[in-house]
């Protein structure tokens, strides 16, 4: 089919517009002035200030710990669940699978509200534990559904062939099943990690007085006023995303090689 030019132009314009605020953030992170409306020359002082900010560093570490723990738990729960449900189908499994998807289907505020009330009812101290539980609930669906989709697409006779060649069921899992689903687990983790690392709404409700996550910290700062420090932070986070995405693309490419 012939492709006209204007669709490209349209897509190009929209893409450029979506990048304007991002680029401005990056540009102003190097601005010597404290005001985002004036340009007073190139400076790295906001980066320096950011690195000196202990609260910010603590929040970053907290966010990383939180995302990593939630993802580990979610990989464990989601992958095992997908494997178990793939082997035997029954309506109870379908129900549980359906319920497990709810956290990413409803507005985040509901989840935050639910956890705040449940955790206070249970008397759990608000902090890292409550954060991890809450984040795991919305990380599981990403990993579960990715792995499930991969298992559906997987050639069942591969497992049978390994069994036929003398491998025990445990061996079959390690030698054949796991290598097949690893790309799916990785892409699930990538999404789950991004969602956890980015989450404000749920974290605000379940975080304790002593634990701050990075997005919560940024949110409070943004509400109290503009600090150019955030520009520097935004630039660094953007850089991280780009690096991670390129990394994921490389992993994805080698994963595709295996799949074919």
């Amino acid at each position: 089919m012939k492709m006209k030019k204007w669709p490209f132009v349209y897509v190009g314009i929209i893409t450029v517009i979506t990048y304007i605020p991002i680029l401005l953030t990056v540009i102003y992170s190097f601005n010597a002035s404290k005001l985002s409306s004036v340009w007073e020359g190139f400076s790295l002082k906001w980066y320096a200030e950011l690195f000196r900010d202990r609260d910010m560093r603590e929040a970053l570490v907290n966010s990383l710990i939180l995302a990593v723990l939630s993802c580990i738990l979610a990989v464990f729960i989601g992958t095992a669940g997908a494997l178990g449900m793939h082997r035997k189908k029954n309506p109870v499994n379908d129900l549980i699978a359906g319920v497990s998807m709810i956290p990413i289907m409803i507005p985040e505020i509901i989840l935050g509200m639910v956890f705040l009330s449940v955790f206070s009812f249970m008397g759990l101290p608000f902090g890292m534990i409550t954060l991890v539980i809450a984040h795991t609930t919305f990380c599981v669906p990403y990993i579960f559904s990715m792995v499930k989709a991969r298992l559906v697409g997987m050639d069942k006779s591969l497992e049978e062939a390994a069994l036929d060649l003398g491998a025990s069921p445990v061996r079959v899992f390690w030698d054949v099943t796991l290598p097949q689903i690893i790309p799916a687990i990785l892409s699930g983790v990538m999404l789950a990690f991004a969602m956890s690392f980015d989450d404000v709404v749920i974290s605000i409700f379940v975080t304790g007085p002593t634990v701050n996550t990075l997005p919560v910290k940024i949110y409070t700062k943004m509400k109290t006023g503009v600090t150019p420090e955030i520009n520097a932070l935004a630039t660094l986070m953007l850089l991280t995303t780009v690096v991670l995405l390129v990394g994921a693309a490389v992993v994805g490419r080698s994963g595709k090689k295996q799949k074919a």
Partner: protein
Amino acid sequence: MKDIILQLNAIQKSFEGTEVLKGVSLEINRAEFITLLGASGCGKTTTLRIIAGLENPDKGSVLLEGKDITNLEPNKRNVNTVFQNYALFPHMNVADNVGYGLKIKKMPKAEIAGRVAEALKLVQLEEYGKRMPDQLSGGQRQRIAIARAVVNEPKVLLLDEPLGALDLKLRRQMQLELKRLQKQLGITFIYITHDQEEAINMSDRIAVMNKGVLEQVGTPNEIYYQPRTSYVADFVGNANILHVGEDAFAIRSENVLMNGEEPCTKEAQVVEKSFAGGQLRILFRLEDGQLITASRYGIDADISVGAQVKIGWLPEHAVKVVEA
């Protein structure tokens, strides 16, 4: 004296209430090439999977060299399978694929390498050890799948329509090669196909299956010339089934005489002429209304549609069969 390696005793199997195997019994000899032949859904693949241990029968038993292996796990049977879609592990190279079974048996690495090289030589793909499966053609994958199975020196090799995905020319070539391999290795091959030509070309014996029942087991000659049932006559020889009173007779189309060949004693009308596969096929309607097909090589015969002619057959070409 017969040397039976594998014995199936009255195997029954149902899936979700549908009876797939209705008491299949079969004795298979050592170093024999036997083919399970039948249309799709006849139960031949299920039979194979039961021998491999990938399914358990509801009733009946499987004996390998006299030992009951009915409920033995597939990984503990000295039986290997060449899967229909080859099932090569996509994340392992060819050598790792072929050596997988040996690695499981904890054979020393150097020995594995030697055995793998030998197996690859056997299927004429010595140079391909480092390739990934997706870098191979269909025919090459097929050979690797065979190498991966035979390298374990199984007592019995199961082949589930292994040539089904190949084109006609390659299929013919692989038929000969498989037969050569089997002779060379001296392993019992249990081969599954729905292609009667393939079965006749390769097998020492053929077991024709229909709707979960073995209709006839015998040499290709027996199956072709002395079909026991009308199903076998039709499926293997494309024979006409004629009913005379209570009895049914199978007459293969090339044995139907016409155009003054002796003896032509029956009145018939030409219904249809068609050309296919190098053969001219002519459909007649006999006086009692039964239809019968004759076939001749060549593209035309001196006979036209609608004509009233005389046809016939030699008495020895009408084989009495059991109605299926």
